[in-house]
């Protein structure tokens, strides 16, 4: 299988995986000596959002499933950990978070995968909000106050950092493998032309459901890690704007590239943090960024980067990349 991967275009080469992973590993090792407290939490958020955005990109970059309900799975993972953190060890809690989110995602996929495009977006939005309302109204998950005091046992602040870093790195590797596997490429083909793929004998609906489940599982892991990092889980984790941020990150970074969402996640999380003290202006700037990216950089920052490099190498013809924009 690795040989087959190596023979694809350079974006699928191992260098495309190991290079960025190495960078992340270095960052994870270095940060504890540079930051602590709220700054470390901010970087944990960045890592978590990298995972969240990358899994969500299975739905945007690899399938044509514009889901506005990913927050529901993020929240499910977070609440799962919040409910079991004091009775099971951390690895079990995280696995449980992944499993529960995957199951919920599968169920929702079964219902919503019949629809497409805008209606699909609306249905997932409504389902996500429905789960949010459910969390708010249910007493045994703390209703609107949520569940505070989540502790990672004997892991100190640095321990939690390594936990988040390690899990995110592992998950990214798994995502990368799936993304470039035959399954992932079939998804891509489905995105481009689902009708043709149906005629080729591919069961498009099943592929979509699996894709949705994978995205949900990734979001669930991100949510579980969030529970340990933030120490508290509230229904806010399921609110529809939480579905919007990963989408923004995917757009800003570039949805046609595996690492696009990661770049977007870093940029947007840090930007949002900078803006948080400025009511009104934070919305204006976010809106302008979103519109700006859509109009002038539809292939995202990575797309701009690729174009810039091609432009610098003027001589070589620009490789005709398939539609990498939304």
């Amino acid at each position, binding site marked *: 299988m690795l040989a087959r991967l190596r023979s694809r275009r350079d974006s699928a080469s191992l260098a495309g995986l190991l290079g960025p992973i190495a960078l992340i590993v270095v960052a994870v090792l270095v940060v504890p000596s540079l930051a602590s407290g709220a700054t470390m939490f901010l970087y944990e958020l960045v890592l978590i959002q990298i995972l969240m955005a990358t899994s969500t990109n299975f739905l945007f970059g690899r399938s044509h499933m514009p889901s506005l309900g990913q927050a529901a799975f993020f929240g499910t993972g977070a609440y799962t950990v919040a409910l079991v953190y004091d009775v099971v060890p951390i690895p079990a809690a995280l696995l449980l978070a992944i499993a529960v989110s995957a199951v919920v995602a599968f169920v929702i996929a079964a219902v919503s995968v019949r629809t497409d495009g805008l209606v699909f977006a609306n249905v997932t939005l*409504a389902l996500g909000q429905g789960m949010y309302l459910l969390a708010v109204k249910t007493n045994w998950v703390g209703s609107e106050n949520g569940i505070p005091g989540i502790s990672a046992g004997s892991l100190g602040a640095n321990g939690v950092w390594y936990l988040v870093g390690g899990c995110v790195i592992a998950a990214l590797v798994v995502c990368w493998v799936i993304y470039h596997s035959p399954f992932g490429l079939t998804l891509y083909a489905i995105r481009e032309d689902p009708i043709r793929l149906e005629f080729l004998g591919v069961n498009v609906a099943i592929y979509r459901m699996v894709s949705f489940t994978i995205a949900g599982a990734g979001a669930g892991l991100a949510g579980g890690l969030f529970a340990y990092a933030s120490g508290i889980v509230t229904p806010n984790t399921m609110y529809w704007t939480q579905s919007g941020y990963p989408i923004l990150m995917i757009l800003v970074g570039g949805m046609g590239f595996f690492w696009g969402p990661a770049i977007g996640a870093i940029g947007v999380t840090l930007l949002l943090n900078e803006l948080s003290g400025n009511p009104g202006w934070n919305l204006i700037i976010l809106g302008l960024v979103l519109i700006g990216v859509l109009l002038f950089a539809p292939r995202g920052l990575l797309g701009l980067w690729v174009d810039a490099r091609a432009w610098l190498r003027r001589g070589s013809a620009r490789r005709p990349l398939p539609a990498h924009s939304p």
Partner: protein
Amino acid sequence: MLGSIFAGIADGFLLFLIASGLTLIFGVMRILNFSHGGYFMLGAYFAYQVVTSAGFSPLPLGFFIVAVLIGSVGVGAVGIATERLLFRRIYELSDIASLLGTFGLLLLIEGIAEVIWGINPMSVPFPTLVDKSVKVVGVRVATYSIVLIGVGILVGIGLWYLLRRTAFGERARAVAEDRYMCELVGMNTAAVSTAVFAIGTMLAGLGGALATPLVALTPDVATAFIIEAFAVVIVGGLGSISGSLIAALVFGVVDSLAITYVPSLSGVSFFILMFVVLLVRPQGLVKNARAFA
């Protein structure tokens, strides 16, 4: 129970004002305009600004009507500006991209409103002559609800007349049916798009302005009604005005009755309704939704 039904119908007509603009814009431009709620909010703030700057107390009905008109026309102007500057570019993008672009616009509009008017809830009193209640069939109904129903009916008739009996309406329906063909025939589809967008946003602004005495006005209002409006449009059938009217009324009445008899379902009833309809009839309530039926 009758009281709840009346209240539900009034609420439904308010929703219809928002949803009709949304579905109109979708029909002609194939964009589901996420920022529509922003225009609703702007209509409310414009009307609020006019009323407060004049400082009448109590608020005469005639002046309130003027404020509402200024509000909706003002929003129409903003609509034309944004259509020219922004939406023209967004048409060419895919449907996801246009959805996201309009979402960006919503953030922008909300942010600007927050910077200008702040987050404190603003309040507009009920105008005179419509600030009390009347007894209809033995039930106390707020006069203002009757106003909303009246305006909604007028708008419905007006839209029907515009689309079915005027030359402009014919052009709009043609563009909704097949834009490409219209361009081939030499029609100025860009002008039609702009005009339709202006009407759609004016309707949203009208809804917002009319809602001001009922709500505590904050920038949040942009998103408060929009999810319901989307549900109405989808259930009614994308592009169908009569569909959105029926859906809006059904939603309004069902939600109202749910609150009275099954309070735990409040706020959730329309989700449930939406799923039921979508499972049974995914293309929406009204058949042949494309041609502004």
